[in-house]
């Protein structure tokens, strides 16, 4: 397929179909409504399931059920809707169920606003549910990267038997960009889902059960440690990031999603002025790409985190930095996207120049 012009939400929906999504359960919320809208009339063309549930809580429990039966399942929502789904996500992690969750982030807390935000960073990377669990999460920058990750996410979720989240700010959900949905993407070797509770174990008396409840404490700790091993494997294998002009950089901006797009134009402007600035762009939000920070050159004396939230990712940067480099932060919230000029001025101030 040649490149077509698509809106982010539609593109993610079509990418999910291409990624082999068998069923979608969701509930409307702006700014992600084009995902269920698109799937509501296209899933049936592929003979697949689309259900608009009565609430987010119902939707995530339908996801739990279908995933437990071995289906490839998708749900999508936006920040406050994801908050409602957190209980179900914790249950899925506990029951080791794969699913893909699209979160098109808007301003918060509470109902906040429908305008774009990255204020869910903590919700995405720490999880709002209970217990020791993690959700592998991506924060892509372009529509092409987003659709590639949505398609891969189903494999990754199946491989780890764990929910995978695609977390984009509202702007990526709403923007138009040419995308190719049939390009080559990495495929994973997946074992058959012999754990699925689909009535097909093939053996009389043998039943697969899907539970997150463990009655004996020893047993639960064993389960916790087994999950931990899985998360350690994700930390080892799944960190993804991009480094842009960091080799000779004196100051490195850390930014993801839409903010990274803005930073790219800032780098051009500042380099013309002789300020050596680079970009470290996390692609996975969890696991946070610690490995990228090890590759930064000695020359990089300062890291500037820029977010559409007020210092959430900056806490991860601080933890990874372990006091090695000077740190600075610049964030906008409430649905405001930082403009290139604002970020450039912030960098100029930090390197001792005056704002242009």
């Amino acid at each position, binding site marked *: 397929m040649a490149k077509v012009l*698509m809106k982010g939400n*539609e593109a993610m929906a079509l990418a999910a179909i291409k990624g082999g999504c068998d069923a979608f359960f969701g509930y409307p919320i702006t700014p992600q409504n084009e995902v269920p809208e698109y799937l509501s009339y296209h899933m049936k063309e592929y003979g697949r399931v689309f259900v608009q549930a009565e609430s987010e809580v119902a939707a995530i429990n339908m996801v739990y059920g279908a995933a437990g039966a071995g289906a490839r399942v998708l749900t999508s929502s936006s920040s406050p809707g994801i908050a409602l789904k957190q209980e179900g996500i914790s249950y899925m992690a506990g029951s080791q169920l794969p699913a893909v969750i699209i979160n098109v982030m808007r301003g918060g807390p509470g109902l906040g606003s429908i305008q774009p935000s990255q204020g869910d960073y903590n919700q995405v990377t720490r999880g709002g549910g209970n217990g020791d669990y993690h959700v592998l999460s991506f924060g892509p920058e372009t529509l092409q990267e987003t659709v590639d990750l949505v398609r891969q996410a189903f494999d990754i979720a199946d491989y780890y038997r764990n929910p995978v989240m695609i977390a984009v700010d509202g702007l990526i959900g709403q923007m138009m960009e*040419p995308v190719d949905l049939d390009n080559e993407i990495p495929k994973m070797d997946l074992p058959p889902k012999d754990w699925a509770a689909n009535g097909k174990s093939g053996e009389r008396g043998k039943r697969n059960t899907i539970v997150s409840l463990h009655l004996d404490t020893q047993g639960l700790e064993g389960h916790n440690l087994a999950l931990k091993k899985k998360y350690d494997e994700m930390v080892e294998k799944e960190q993804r990031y991009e480094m842009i002009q960091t080799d000779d950089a004196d100051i490195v901006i850390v930014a993801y999603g839409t903010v990274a797009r803005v930073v790219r134009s800032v780098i051009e402007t500042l380099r013309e002025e002789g300020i050596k600035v680079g970009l470290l762009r996390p692609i996975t939000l969890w696991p946070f790409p610690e490995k990228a920070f090890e590759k930064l050159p000695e020359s990089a004396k300062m890291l500037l985190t820029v977010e559409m939230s007020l210092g959430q990712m900056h806490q991860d940067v601080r933890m990874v930095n372990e006091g090695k480099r000077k740190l600075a932060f610049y964030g906008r919230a409430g649905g405001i996207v930082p403009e290139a000029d604002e970020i450039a001025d912030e960098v100029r101030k930090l390197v001792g120049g005056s704002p242009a």
Partner: protein
Amino acid sequence: MKRITILTGHYGSGKSEIAVNLAVQEKSDMLVDLDIINPYFRSRSVRALLESHGVEVAESTLENAAGSDLPFISPKGSRPFVNRSMRAVYDLGGTKHGAKIMMQYRDMIKDPENLDFLVVININRMETDSAEKIVRVIDELQNTSQLRVTGLINNANMLEYTDEQTIRDGEAVLKEVEAQTGVPIVMTFVETTVKTTGDFAGETRPLTRYLAKHWL
């Protein structure tokens, strides 16, 4: 351009960007943003720019409330139908759902000869990538708006991937539509950054990206 120019089309076809461009180019008296479908990239988001060109903006009754998606429409939007000395551009929400909103003005239109109902088509959108699909879209838009489509706008721009051929490809498909329906191509928009060797069907107009900023 006619006194009242109403823009419709699929969402993502470039209606709002073109509405802003037309209002600025024509120094219209008013831009009426009737988009109750899209939460982002609406023409009302560049209110300051429009006002600096002397264009009044009519949008929701809740002005400057970008954080809401309540489908309110300012009564100001009906003024151009009543005051026939006003020149206005109407920017509808995408698809037939966005076009339905025109129904409320139907009985107010006293000078239909001064009104254009134009469909913005970007052939790079899957829903309008063939003459057959476009003809169907035109039908739907006419049925729900109760207005006759009077012209087509070729907007085949594809951000940084646009070249002259992209625009010509759009034109070729729209010429088929023109032949089948009798609805003419009235304008072609070409982004100012694209180099072209000649003019296109209808009026060729420059497109400046006011809504989709360049880092997008």
